């Protein structure tokens, strides 16, 4: 059953985020956006024009950004702190840990141009550590939407959430919805965007799309049917779905735009191993090395986060 893959409609999740925020701000004056000279990078120019009283600029000062957002949130505002994921989750990590998570100020941290979206700008601009560091902090939800639909829903639901949330996405065009069948999105519940019993891809964020493509190719060319889960919420992990998925004892491949250390793959492995599952298992992520230079697409291909690379990885697990 090939998924009806919705055209790669080239709307960036970033654009959808901005549009959704405008929609919310129009009837909720408590929605406040806080930026660190990131208005343009966050596609928030139109937001600023329409809602000048609902945008607060702090300058190039990410620690200040998170601290100020924590103060706003503690006064009942729905504060969205928007900054490139690399700076937001490294520069401001102590503010996230103490002022947001520990102090339970429900800031919505929005990490834009995440992962390796900045391509050849290099390591300073990549966020391959964010799942790992935030997973180790209590009281924060971590979300990486795969498509436009998940992005819009994540933003809407985060706005109504009374606890800290981190949402990260890139700037490349993404499909509007990876699965027409599944129109439900709930934070903490993975979405099965493609069914199949021979192997499962558990992926997150922009790494889900190459899994869907690989799954189509695996079915057409090799008659291997793959299930693809968009595990948009990395914390808390959808353990029930993983439990059910692993039950058939077929191979599992996790795929993410993150370091191999401390991300989705290790989270899934840890859960399954402790539950006694021994499915063959492979983590596809960025290895612990100086990341190759190039565009996001080139970096993905280099490390096998691509249709071709994932087909190979899948076949290696199925025909050992």
């Amino acid at each position, binding site marked *: 059953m090939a998924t009806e893959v919705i055209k790669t409609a080239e709307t960036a999740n970033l654009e959808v985020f901005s549009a959704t925020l405008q929609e919310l701000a129009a009837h909720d004056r408590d929605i406040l956006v806080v*930026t*660190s*000279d*990131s*208005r*343009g*990078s966050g596609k928030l120019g139109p937001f600023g024009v329409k809602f000048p009283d609902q945008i607060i*600029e*702090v*300058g*190039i*000062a*990410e*620690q*200040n950004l998170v601290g100020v957002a924590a103060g706003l949130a503690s006064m009942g505002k729905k504060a969205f702190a928007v900054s490139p994921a*690399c*700076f937001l989750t*490294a*520069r401001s990590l102590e503010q996230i840990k103490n002022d947001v998570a520990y102090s339970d100020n429900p800031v919505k941290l929005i990490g834009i141009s995440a992962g390796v979206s900045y*391509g*050849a*700008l*290099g*390591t*300073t*601009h990549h966020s391959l550590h964010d799942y790992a560091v935030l997973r180790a902090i209590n009281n924060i939800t971590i979300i990486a939407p795969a498509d436009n639909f998940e992005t819009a829903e994540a933003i809407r639901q985060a706005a109504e959430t009374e606890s800290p949330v981190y949402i990260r996405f890139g700037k490349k065009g993404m499909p509007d919805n990876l699965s027409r069948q599944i129109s439900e999105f709930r934070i903490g519940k993975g979405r099965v965007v493609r069914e199949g019993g021979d192997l499962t891809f558990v992926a997150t964020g922009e790494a889900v799309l190459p899994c869907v493509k690989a799954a189509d190719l695996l079915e057409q060319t090799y008659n291997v049917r793959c299930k693809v889960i968009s595990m948009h919420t990395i914390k808390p992990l959808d353990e029930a779905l993983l439990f059910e998925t692993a039950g058939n004892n077929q191979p599992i491949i996790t795929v993410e735009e993150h370091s191999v250390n401390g991300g989705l793959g290790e989270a899934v492995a840890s859960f399954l191993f402790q539950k006694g599952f021994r499915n063959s298992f492979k983590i596809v992520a960025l290895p612990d090395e100086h990341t*190759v*230079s*190039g*565009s996001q697409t*080139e970096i993905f291909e*280099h490390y096998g986060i691509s249709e071709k690379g994932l087909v190979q990885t899948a076949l290696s697990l199925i025909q050992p």
Partner: protein
Amino acid sequence: MTIQELELKSVEYREKILRYIYNAKAGHTGGSLSVVDILNVLYNRIMNVSPENFHLNERDRYVQSKGHCVEALYVVLADQGFFPEEDLLTLCRYQSPYIGHPTKKIKGVEQNTGGLGHGLAICAGNAIAAKKDGLPLKVFTIMGDGELAEGSNWEAFMLASHYKLDNLCAILDYNKLQISGTNTEVMGLEPIDKKLEAFGWAVRHVDGHNFEELTSTLESLPFETGKPSFIIAHTTKGKGVSYMENTLKWHHGVPDKEQYAAAMEELEGIRTKILE
């Protein structure tokens, strides 16, 4: 190098910055054009650093805190002979070491920068170490005006005067623009001279495109014994290409074919004028 030679060098540097950005279809154009005259004077008149002495601890240090303007630095380093200029044709390409921010993989680059607000503290560390070792070297950094909003800079400003780092010089590329607007719109920093003085620094204003002023100011370091020096270099973002000057979109805008040709023509005009 004479003042006229420096002026001609800067025209050449600007042409090369645009050439490699145009070729890579990426780069920080405006800030590279605003900073390049300062780099020109530092590398051609002031600093004791070259491919020959780069392995010696005695060399002067330069850390580019506003790392995004790497194209200006690469072009100047190539001209100093640190690496073949043709290498820059691979700028931002797959597997090229010449990425869009300074990296120590490239000879001549002292530190990996790109995240703003890191350079000054590293330089302060260099300056303390040099004093401990009795090395008479100088340490330089160039910072962006938008960059000054990062709190880490102010921690380092405080420390540098506390430790009387008169072997340290920070230069502000004061082009008055950042990504989303003017400094005044985004995060005001005036009166920047008084702030730095209050932090214990000796401060001078210069025209960041005037080679005589830049040279004489940099030759008179330290401005005061026992104090770090801060140079407020008033610059124009996009300097040298009129349609890019003082225009937000040229922060990281890349010229198309016609724009590139027009820019080159304008720079050639500047060269002709210098030679007249």
